[in-house]
């Protein structure tokens, strides 16, 4: 009954969006896996990064994707600062305290944005890649294709880094045993700080890619926070690949929910699936916990 081309198109879009979700969720997964920090303000960093992207894009009048060159290092530094000021004091605190503090951080970020930018949408009016490739009945948005490709490449680069570099080794060692790692000459605090910075830098990359076609407002973060956590939970801390797969699943579920139920219910479909996955695979789909 439903047009097969429509289903195909939606599935393709689901996959493309899913890759972007994976990229955004990866930082959260790394931080949680490494230092057990429960960050409920993750999505709000995406929002702040999206505003920063917009400001720079408007200033230089270049496509938002290009601004990643500036925003990614900038947000790495911001991440280090946030780690020092807010995260370090709550390391090892009860999960509930961490949630309270990061929810507070989310309020601060949202309302700073509201006070400064007001509630209206901000978007770059002249994007470079605002067209589609048409192959028969299948249309693929070029900006989304670029975003997905960059996301995928970044996921693989991070994965390579974790497996093959000295820093990656330190991350994995610390993640495996926080007590023993310092004995092996690893500066745990430094590893934590860099990882947190990296996680925030990834949100900046995600935001730059999203702003190629998207818009931001003070509440954009709410769309990403819970979704990122769901991806982390479904990935089951199975490393980069777990996040990649579960991001794809979320993207595809969203597309299917949108197609077969309604666009309003698409998130409910994702979360319902999350319920059952958590019930029957409490360790996540792709890993150990």
């Amino acid at each position, binding site marked *: 009954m439903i047009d097969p081309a429509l289903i195909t198109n939606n599935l393709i879009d689901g996959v493309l969006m899913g890759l972007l979700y994976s990229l955004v969720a990866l930082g959260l997964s790394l931080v*949680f896996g490494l230092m057990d920090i429960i960050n409920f303000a993750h999505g709000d960093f995406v929002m702040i990064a999206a505003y920063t992207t917009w400001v720079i894009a408007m200033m230089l009048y270049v496509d938002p994707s290009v601004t990643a060159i500036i925003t990614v290092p900038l947000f790495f530094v911001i991440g280090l600062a946030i780690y020092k000021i807010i995260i370090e004091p709550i390391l090892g605190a009860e999960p509930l305290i961490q949630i309270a503090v990061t929810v507070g951080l989310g309020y601060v970020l949202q309302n700073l944005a509201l006070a400064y930018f007001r509630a209206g949408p901000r978007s770059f009016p002249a994007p470079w890649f605002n067209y589609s490739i048409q192959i028969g009945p299948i249309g693929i948005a070029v900006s989304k294709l670029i975003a997905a490709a960059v996301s995928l490449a970044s996921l693989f680069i991070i994965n390579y880094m974790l497996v093959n570099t000295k820093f990656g080794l330190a991350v994995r060692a610390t993640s495996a045993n926080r007590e023993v790692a310092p004995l092996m000459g690893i500066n745990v605090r430094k590893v934590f700080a860099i990882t947190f910075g990296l996680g925030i830098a990834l949100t900046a990359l995600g935001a730059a890619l999203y702003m190629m076609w998207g818009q931001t407002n003070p509440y954009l973060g709410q769309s990403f926070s819970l979704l990122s956590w769901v991806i982390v939970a479904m990935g089951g801390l199975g490393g980069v690949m777990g996040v990649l797969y579960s991001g794809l699943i979320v993207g595809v579920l969203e597309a299917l929910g949108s197609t077969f139920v309604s666009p309003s219910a698409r998130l409910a479909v994702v979360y319902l699936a999350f319920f059952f996955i958590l019930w029957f695979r409490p360790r996540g789909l792709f890993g150990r916990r």
Partner: protein
Amino acid sequence: MEFSKAVRKDILAVIALVLAMAAIPFAIGFERYYLLILSTATVFAIYVVAWNIIGGYAGQLDLAAFVYSSLGGIVAARLMVYYGITPWIGMFAGAGVAAALAAIIGYPTFRFGIKEVWYALLTASLVVIVREIMHMPEFLGSLDYRLPWKYMGWYWLRFPTYEQLYWVLVAVLGATMLINVWISNSKIGYYLKAIREDELAAEALGVDVRKYKLIALVTYAAILGFAGYLHISLNGVYTYKNFDSAQSIAVAIMGIIGGLGSIAGAFTSAITLKIVGEYLRSSFGAVIPGLHLLIYGILLIVVGIFKPEGLASVIEWFKKKVGWGGEG
């Protein structure tokens, strides 16, 4: 039933508090704005003190408070508007429906050992799922529903002024606190506190972890489902948006700031934060948009970092000072 000295002290404290709160309207000359602030704060105090059972005693970070309260409240409101059934009955029906949902969700969740952040995520998603289900045309749809004007008076638990509803709220709050006192001093309470501390050790001592977590969740949901109608009656309108994620998280945060497992802390934190929040909104809300929430956020960060034991530690200190021992 025979009460120990500490329990008797707690019960007396709750009764004293209820009487004191009930007297406030006289003290402030029935000034409506202040009565409304007090009523709203009391609604949240009920929620937070009830949350203390699942969050404080059992240590499960439940982020779905408004699922249970709104569901219960809407059941009572619908029974009233569609079938002319008094909320005195409807509120029990609401409590039953909320408790049933909690049991349906809680049984498999605890059966499969979902806890900590995963439990928090599950309950946070539950809010979205129930909201979207209620948003479907078959349920509430997109419309707003109002409690019509004709339903006024004690029979309908709806009043043009606030003091009557406020007294009902204070009574429910008192009952909720007594339930907390009872749980805290019964086998359930000891078991829940043991579960919060160390599930594995508790289980080896014969504690049926799943059963007691479920008891805590269902009790909490039932209280919220019962009180939900009072909240709807207070502002006279309900929609699918009552299934509110942000407010559900706010309830949990008030519980955390109050200090886990402390009845006095939960109460103090809900009342204080609600009043401070309202003060910030009314003073700064129209000056710079969002300034009041910004300040609220900073407050949360500061409390979380510098006083993670929550208000309970302050209250504990105060109690020692005035020589008033026993459990909070």
